[in-house]
């Protein structure tokens, strides 16, 4: 036990100390941060951009709407930044346009907005300008024109636009609750998008850390340090220590990344306020402690199944090319499982989904996915866990037997028949 701890400690400390760990641990929250902040930030930047105001408004409607639009666009920064408003008769539109065009080409104006003579029933509004491809600026302009057109219509119908706005403003948030045989709510469902993310994160991390275990075994074999180490510690202990230590790295990394992500999401409004941007917090899904514990258990067992298989592969091969080939079957098991994530998330109660919940190679990913979507009877959950524990035990047993022989064998990789012999043979 003490040696197991020493091996695990080395695996953990050497990896946590590496630059790779720091970078990849920071990367996830950084990515989440970008996803949360960037769009809002740029949208808000666009909103205060004074560029939008530097346009010419050619208004042939005779209703004065052009003036009101100009007033709304005016950012009040400087006189030459204000929109230029030209009230023209319908026949003079063409002339006004041709005189506004050189200003746009020379860059003195951003563009010109033409409000045609007819505002009812279908308004004739056009914009030409150098920024016509900017979605943000165009949608802002369109919003302003749209609002003013409605206000004009309301006024002509004898209504006060402000009063209408006050009356129609309604922020409805309907509370929902799931009703099941077991009672109201509380069944731990998270929602399909989050369930999808959970399954995908499980898939990625199990794959990623399984690969790290395999590379670790290959390194020990290729540098021949295994020869020295197994004279002090049994191959089994070395294998379990490695899986344990790298599992610890996974836990540390997921823990740090996860907590940072949750923090960012929960404090989105406060953080955005620092950037002088108004934004609301995203709602975090509610995860019950039982559900959280189940997720952790499935992750741990899934990690053990796959990392021990990857370790066995690492011990079998002597070169990178061999590793690529030999790991195919195990990789395929994972990839095929990942392909089922989408179908299962659409119909989590299907027979396919149920079957995949009892296969140790797919249940660590499929079962958490179903758990976050639908209530699962306890006995089915227990059956799934039991089959997974049995699969875990079998995978570790086979892997340990392959590992202890393969680690000190060099040269040609074993044929399937030799592998069977390795598993059967004594030490």
């Amino acid at each position, binding site marked *: 036990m003490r040696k197991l701890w*020493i091996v695990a400690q080395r695996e953990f400390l*050497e990896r946590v100390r590496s630059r790779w760990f720091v970078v990849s641990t920071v990367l996830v929250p950084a990515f989440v941060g970008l996803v949360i902040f960037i769009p809002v930030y740029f949208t808000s930047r666009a909103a205060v951009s004074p560029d939008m105001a530097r346009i010419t408004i050619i208004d042939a409607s005779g209703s004065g709407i052009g003036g009101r639009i100009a007033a709304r666009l005016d950012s009040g920064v400087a006189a030459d930044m204000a929109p230029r408003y030209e009230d023209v008769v319908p026949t003079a539109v063409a002339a006004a346009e041709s005189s506004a065009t050189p200003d746009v080409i020379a860059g003195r104006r951003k563009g010109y907005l033409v409000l045609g003579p007819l505002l009812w029933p279908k308004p004739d509004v056009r914009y030409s300008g150098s920024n016509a491809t900017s979605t943000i600026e165009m949608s802002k302009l369109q919003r302003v024109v749209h609002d003013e057109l409605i206000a004009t219509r309301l006024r002509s119908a004898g209504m006060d636009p402000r009063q209408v706005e006050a009356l129609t403003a309604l922020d409805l948030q309907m509370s929902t609750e799931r009703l099941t045989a077991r009672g109201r709510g509380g069944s731990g469902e998270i929602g399909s998008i989050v369930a999808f993310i959970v399954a995908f994160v499980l898939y990625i991390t199990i794959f990623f850390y399984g690969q790290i275990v395999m590379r670790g075994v290959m390194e020990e074999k290729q540098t*021949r340090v295994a020869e*020295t180490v197994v004279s*002090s510690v049994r191959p089994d202990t070395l294998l379990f220590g490695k899986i344990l230590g790298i599992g610890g790295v996974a836990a540390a990394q997921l823990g740090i990344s996860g907590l940072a992500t949750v923090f960012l999401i929960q404090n989105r409004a406060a953080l955005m306020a620092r950037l002088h941007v108004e934004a609301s917090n995203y709602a975090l899904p509610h995860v019950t402690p039982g559900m959280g514990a189940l997720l952790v258990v499935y992750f741990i067992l899934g990690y053990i199944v796959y990392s021990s298989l990857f370790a066995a592969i690492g011990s079998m091969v002597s070169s990178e090319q061999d590793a690529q080939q030999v790991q195919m079957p195990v990789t395929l098991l994972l990839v095929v499982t990942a392909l089922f994530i989408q179908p299962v998330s659409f119909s989590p109660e299907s027979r396919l989904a149920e079957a995949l919940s009892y296969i140790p190679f797919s249940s660590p990913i499929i079962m958490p996915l179903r758990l976050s979507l639908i209530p699962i009877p306890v006995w089915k959950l227990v059956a799934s866990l039991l089959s997974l524990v049995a699969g875990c035990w079998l995978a570790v047993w086979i892997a340990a037997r392959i590992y202890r022989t393969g680690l000190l064998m060099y040269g040609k990789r074993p044929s399937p028949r030799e592998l069977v012999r390795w598993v059967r043979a*004594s030490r």
Partner: protein
Amino acid sequence: MVDRCYQIVTANLQPLPQTGKTVRDWNRTPRHPYSWGILFPASPDSSMTAAVSIDHISKRFANHVAVRDLSLQIPTGMVYGLLGPNGAGKTTTIRMILDVLEPDSGTIHIMGAPNGRPGVVDRVGYLPEERGLYRRMTVRRVLLFLAQLKGVAAADAARRIDAWLERLQLVTAERDWGDARVEELSRGMQQKVQFIGALVHDPDVMILDEPFSALDPINAQALKDIIIELKRAGKTVIFSTHLMESAERLCDAVCIIAQGTKLVDGTLAEVRRAHGVQQVALALEGGTRNGVTRILQDRTLVARVDDSNQVIEIDLAPSADPQRLLRALIEAGAVVQRFELVQPSLHRVFVDRVSALSPNGEAMEAAHA
């Protein structure tokens, strides 16, 4: 006859090139905290128990039998050579001693205890033939890891590591290589680190698998010095080799194995004596050689001739009298410059024994490899 292993010990009392001190001086110098006392704190008890006792072990792999009913007694405090051609089963035997492999049958005891018992192999140090370390770890961390795996407490291990690094000049006034990553070290320095890794827990039994292969001359010298020092500190050193010269210089006792079977074992003198063949080294004055050809072909006198131009090595026929050969030579008119009865070299014993086992000469090639 003076045992050659004794000679090598005396040879080591000459000043060492690096330190200018002899081994004996080393032992006499006052011990400051970072030297001898830490490296070999206590002499192990050299009672009558064998350091390693192997009883009728066999190991069969899928396609062949690696070790066949092998029994060995390796006495405490000896330098013991495990000799054999490539593929003889030396590494398999060593792996079984270290409990990395389990014999199909038979038992192995280390210092009187079964080697499978927890902590028993911690008393053994091992330098494998295929050497390597964790490349991205620093030297101190690798050594600490290896020492802790052998059950040395961290603080104790750190002191011993520092003492050894200084001793093998990996810590000098200019540079402390202990904090460098293994991959930054030259191959020679990595080999030194590997020695330390095998020694740092102060083992009672040291097992070296082909220790001199791929060693540069400086490190080969350093390792030889360490082996002698270990012996002087009462430790047992077992090493496998197919290089008879190094075995002959270093070993107190040897065992020759081939095809997984023991051919002969015992002290060097015993092994030579047991070989039975009487050898004569003969040198003749130039012109008189032609006359003796007939005598050397006499199968009642001479079993084999190995003519090396300056010296003719002659194996006498079984129960032939060397005096009769000498008389015959003189009567034939030969001018004898040298006529010496010699003990067979270990190399000779090895080649004879092994090629007797496999007449196709594979073993001969292996012995010369």
